């Protein structure tokens, strides 16, 4: 995935410059935020009648958006263990959300694929740990809650 890096001194207006660090966030908090964002997006995409369906679909079709979000949690090398911990807390929801996002937005710059592998899900597709029918079964279970 290409890093979205910019020279803030040249490209970004002064009021958008950030001087505080990402370290303000807890490691677990970053992992949890990413998981909940994916779950929230997947929830909207699972309901075509939802008022937010169209805007959500447009959001995930722009690979820069997911890439930017992935970078929030990739900002620290310690994040993978935290993601794994968060994944263990909410395994079914996260698996379904990632599978759904992978089908809905095939281009995420590789960030989502890397994330899925980092939490032990392997890659989406033929070698995925979740088959299509398993994913659909789990989706039905989760959204029935």
């Amino acid at each position, binding site marked *: 995935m290409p890093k979205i890096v*910019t020279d803030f001194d040249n490209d970004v207006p002064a009021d*958008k410059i*950030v001087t505080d660090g990402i370290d303000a966030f*807890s490691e677990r*908090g970053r992992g949890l935020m990413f998981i909940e964002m994916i779950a929230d997006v997947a929830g909207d995409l699972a309901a075509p009648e939802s008022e*937010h369906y169209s805007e959500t679909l447009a959001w995930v079709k*722009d690979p820069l958006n997911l890439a930017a*979000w992935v970078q929030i949690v*990739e*900002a620290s090398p310690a994040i993978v263990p935290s993601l794994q911990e968060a994944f263990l807390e909410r395994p079914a929801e996260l698996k379904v959300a990632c599978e759904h996002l992978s089908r809905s937005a095939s281009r995420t710059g590789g960030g989502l694929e890397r994330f899925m592998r980092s939490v032990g899900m392997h890659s989406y597709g033929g070698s995925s740990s979740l088959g299509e029918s398993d994913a659909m079964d789990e989706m039905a279970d989760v959204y029935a809650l």
Partner: protein
Amino acid sequence: MSSLNVGMSVAVRALDELPAEQQAVYRARYVADEARELTCIRLGIAPERYDQLLKDTMRSLRTMVAASTHQMAKA
């Protein structure tokens, strides 16, 4: 600090730019690692209100991500 990626800047900016109630929940959940029940008691809000604020926060963050990346694309 002259070079930050957009994802990081979005997360950090959110702390200052979200509405006050969303910011309080966001900070408690992702910065302080405070449990949902404890946050509800501390802020004096019902769990349903907490869930709604969290959902509103996710949507606000999505908008911030989109605005930042589109702004970069134009630059």
